[in-house]
């Protein structure tokens, strides 16, 4: 075989490997119980070489898991010990600092043996329904309150599942059947990946993955570095204020761009707090890497080499490098701002390429509905835990309006309200775009949305709030206006908190106004056709103000 055809074969195998992990991810989606996995794509799947370097990752999945899971396998190899790795083993953890940032994410790693020899690993991560403790929310003061932490350990030894672990899990979580079901789903999806890898190695006559890994890493590294080298070299900074739990938080970054890569240093960021919105460094890396990769190298597949040029550091104990035992349950509500933060810095070196700020953090809401506790009111008989994912507007792009009610940077979907109403006794009275909420500009920010929820007659509910951009709206860029801030109220105007568990009595309606994205460029430059279109369709109220 000549070097030309070898190169073609390597390319074909690289594509195949991406298909293998995609099959792995699909297997997980089809069997998972967790709402966020099956409906919303909150998962990750990947294949790693024997040294624990990620060779390929499924396209399906959300960025928060990307870099995080990429690092996890190294921890597993170290802690299990290379001499203790056997065919048929499966390893598990939900350690926020070694997995993907909070206890709800379970990561499983399975060694892959080919003809009796270790050739690599498959890893997958999924957000499970429950991990015990307080449940999914911001109120914990230490990680101990947030649920069960499973250290890196064997879920299965040579194919035998660790029954003791299953018992411990069963006795410490709500919805035990679903959670245990998801543990098996993760193990099974790794198995699916392994089987496909064996087929591929048979077909191509491979004994190991080393040459293929070299090919993938070499191409990815060179391509990524070429794109980085084409950037203006130097440093740039940005900072952003977000709402936090009960007082606002400062996020700061300095980017250092050189020919060898981009370093994001989060020095100057506020310290961690005693509430569950802190972010472990793995998750900070994941979203910093995501933001930079979108801006610089969007088309290069994720693997160890394409992620390597993007490095991160943050002072120990700051909210973007929170250390054990800081609470981290809803780390996404802070972490989702990292791409806005780094892209805002990059904009200073790379004008006209990056979007304005958006709503960014998902407006997830966890609802616990139950029969009315008011002794005088009508009493229903239903109880349910309901999770909804909702998105505000994304920032306007240089050349394009922002996306209305669309998740960015998260990769999750929303669920049909008709399906949600079958889960428990709630009625969603309104879920539609929020006119006027997009930041004005030459390019308008995406619109947020308005959601109104009540319990069905005879019921009441608590909800766990994890919302942001209420005190600090998305900022426009280059003269573009800010997006509208969000709000959390009852329909009579009673203002509620943006984070933490709160009560909505029977017969009352919760009204959420989700923030809009920032505008890009001066609104005076917006073309007449777009203005007309916005007015006709009611995306804006009346005539837009001229600046």
């Amino acid at each position, binding site marked *: 075989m000549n070097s030309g055809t070898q190169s073609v074969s390597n390319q074909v195998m690289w*594509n195949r490997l991406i298909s293998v992990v995609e099959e792995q991810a699909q297997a997980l989606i089809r069997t998972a119980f967790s709402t966020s996995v099956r409906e919303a794509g909150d998962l990750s799947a990947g294949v790693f070489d024997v040294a624990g370097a990620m060779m390929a990752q499924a396209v399906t999945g959300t960025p928060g898991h990307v870099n995080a899971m990429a690092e996890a396998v190294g921890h597993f190899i170290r802690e299990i010990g290379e001499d203790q790795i056997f065919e048929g083993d499966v390893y598990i953890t939900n350690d926020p600092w070694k997995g993907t940032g909070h206890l709800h994410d379970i990561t499983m790693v399975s060694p892959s043996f080919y003809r009796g020899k270790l050739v690599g690993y498959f890893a997958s991560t999924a957000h499970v*329904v429950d991990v015990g403790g307080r449940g999914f929310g911001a109120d914990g003061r230490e990680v101990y309150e947030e649920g069960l932490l499973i250290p890196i350990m064997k879920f299965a030894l040579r194919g035998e599942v660790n029954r003791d672990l299953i018992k411990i899990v069963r006795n410490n979580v709500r919805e035990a059947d679903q959670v245990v079901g998801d543990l098996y789903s993760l193990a099974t999806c790794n198995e699916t990946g392994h089987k496909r890898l064996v087929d591929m190695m048979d077909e191509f006559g491979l004994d190991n993955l080393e040459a293929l890994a070299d090919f993938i890493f070499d191409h990815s590294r060179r391509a990524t570095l070429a794109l980085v080298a084409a950037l203006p070299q130097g440093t740039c900074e940005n900072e952003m204020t977000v709402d936090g739990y009960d007082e606002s938080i400062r996020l700061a970054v300095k980017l250092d761009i050189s020919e060898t890569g981009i370093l994001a240093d989060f020095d100057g960021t506020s310290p961690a707090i005693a509430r569950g919105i802190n972010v472990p460094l793995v998750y900070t890396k994941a979203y910093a890497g995501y933001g930079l990769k979108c801006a610089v190298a969007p088309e290069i597949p994720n693997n160890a080499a394409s992620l390597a040029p993007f490095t991160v550091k943050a002072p120990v104990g700051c909210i973007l490098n929170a250390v054990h035992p800081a609470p981290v349950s809803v780390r996404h509500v802070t972490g989702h701002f990292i791409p806005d933060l780094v892209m805002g810095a990059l904009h200073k070196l790379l004008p006209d390429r990056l979007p304005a700020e958006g709503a960014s953090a998902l407006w997830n809401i966890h609802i616990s509905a139950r029969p009315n506790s008011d002794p005088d009111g009508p009493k229903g008989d239903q109880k349910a835990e309901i999770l909804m994912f909702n998105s505000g507007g994304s920032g306007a*792009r240089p050349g394009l309006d922002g996306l209305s009610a669309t998740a960015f940077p998260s990769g999750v979907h929303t669920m049909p309200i008709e399906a949600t109403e079958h889960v428990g006794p709630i009625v969603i009275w309104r879920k539609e775009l929020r006119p006027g909420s997009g930041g004005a500009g030459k390019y308008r920010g995406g619109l947020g949305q308005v959601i109104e929820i009540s319990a069905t007659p005879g019921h009441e509910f608590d909800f766990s709030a994890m919302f942001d951009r209420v005190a600090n709206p998305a900022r426009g860029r280059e003269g573009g206006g800010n997006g509208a801030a969000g709000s959390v109220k009852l329909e009579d105007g009673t203002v509620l908190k943006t984070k933490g568990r709160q009560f909505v009595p029977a017969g009352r309606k919760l009204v959420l106004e989700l923030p809009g994205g920032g505008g890009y460029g001066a609104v005076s430059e917006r073309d007449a056709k777009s203005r007309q279109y916005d007015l006709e369709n009611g995306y804006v109220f009346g005539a837009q103000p001229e600046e």
Partner: protein
Amino acid sequence: MNDTAVRVGVDIGGTFTDVVLEYGGEAFSAKVLTTPTAPEDAILDGIGQVLAKASLSAKDISVIIHGTTLATNALIERRGANTALITTQGFRDVIEMRSESRFEQYDLNLVLPKPLISRAHRHTLAERIGANGQVLKSLDPAEVEALAEQIEQRGYDSVAVGLIHSYMNPRHEELVRGILLARMPELSVSISSEVSPQMREFERFNTVCANAYVKPLMKSYLDRLVSRLNDMGANCPVFMMHSGGGIISLESASEFPVRLVESGPAGGAIFAAHIAARYGIDAALSFDMGGTTAKICLIKDQTPKTSTTFEVARTYRFKKGSGMPISIPVIEMVEIGAGGGSLAHIDSLQQIRVGPESAGSQPGPACYQQGGERPAVTDADLLLGRLDPDNFAGGSIKLSSERSASAVEQHVGTALGLDQTTAAFGISEVVDENMANATRVHAVENGEDLSGFTMIAFGGAAPLHAGRLCEKLGIERLLVPPGAGVGSAIGFLRAAFSFEATRSTYMRLSAYDPGAVQNVLKELAQEAEAFVRSCDTTSPLTYECKAYMRFVGQGWEIPVVLSEADYEASDRSAIMARFETAYRALFGRTVEGLDIEVTSWSARVSTPVPPVAQIETVSADNEAVSDVKRPIYDPIGQKFDEAAVVERTALNAGVAVAGPAVIVESETSIIVPASFEAVMQPDGCLLLGRLESNPQTEALS
């Protein structure tokens, strides 16, 4: 079906309109260019041609069965009616907000598809049905009257009505339609509880909007077609192929034109299913590769796999999520941007990428010499010896190897330092791998292992790539039927009258209510029966009922086929056992301790499929002889081999052609890889079987 019947199948595709006439055991076909402004012109032209070939006249035609991409194209090109949507207050933007996600994670300049009906044309009513079908807020007729007045003033041609939870209780939608029609009897009105009574508001609303959007257009087209056919003397019944692979009446098609979307590809799948039945194949993979896309469908027990929802008009590299969802019963297919015209380029990783951009028929691949500069898959095929430059498309287009060579070299070879042949091989391998990967993922999603499958290949480019695809997928047998160029139109003639009615009615097995289940299935069966009886009043009917089930807490329902005994039973045990069996087949295990729920039910009613005469497969009794040889590139040995060139028409049943070989016919060429042997069968199909050894393993190490 008797032999004296003259049956005509007509398939309008984007480029060609195919007509097939069958009479007395013989088939006659014609391929004419589609006439988009008046599609009936091409049909009449094509019918004229096949009648002439068969020496028949229009009045001899017994039946015409028609499928068309017109509805699909109207949705893609946004050439539908001036349409309004009426929906529940608070939900005006469901079709615009979609799933609130981005189908491509890393593209900062992503553009989402625009909703079919823009916000200004979406109107709301203060009403609300609850999840159990109860009225939470009643509909005020005065408010509807006022809206009807507005609808009239604004001059809409068509109205879609989609209200929350209408699949549970259609009353409000029906009231709205009644008031609209009382004021405007001629108005075209579609309601979601009839068009697609399934849970999930985005999909249902979008489906009713699509139906309303294409309804005036399709009705006017079908009326014109019938009158033109009458004018030419064809007074026979005309039926329409639907996306679920069955046939419905013209009236049903005019009322629910969204059901015609993807009817052409559905015909292709029926064609393949028929071939599978002829050969008694229980696990088949149909592979249809044309100029722009490849379509792949799993066919189990001679029945194509079906689904209740699919996506049309994908706007971004055929990527899932970039189109609009349509919730109707449909033959499930994977469609990817891989065809003879798919263009190759080099990406930032210095890797070869192929498609989804296509050279189409204008300018076409570089070798067509019509101004195409960039290399297409057909150019690679030509350079690898798979096509005869002097005998392409019956000799109607002379291909230029020089043009192919310079396009491949300039756009791929030079950049990568590959010689012309290796660059062409790279293009071909990448497109084959793309198709193989899409097929594998689709098989996994359906819980199938492809190793025991037989591939059935048709469409212009399929026979060039099918052998390699089989090698990549580990498939041992490949059938290439005759008439592959007009496969969909032939498929129309093999379809039964059928209709599938579907409805979401939520039920947990822990609260199983046999009476309610029997009622739902009875109503669905009656609804479907009415559609079928409007076409055929006498044939015995077959019924198939399904429940869409999952464990409580999951988001994916799996289809579970129910026998009559299952739903006639007084308890849930039979239906539960069916679910567990189906779940285990898909995912390898079931989950203990969890309740099971049903989200929807369906009933499919059809006339019997005409019995298929089984073919006794013949094995090789002699070798084809050919003095003609030409060099063909072998992707496994990675070198040119001298391959025998054999005319398909010269082969009799039992004649074998050992690979490497190329079997030529007027429409295309069939490549027999070195690892395969082809044997001509009594019905004109070529059956390719893999030879014992598997050289692939050695080759790439």
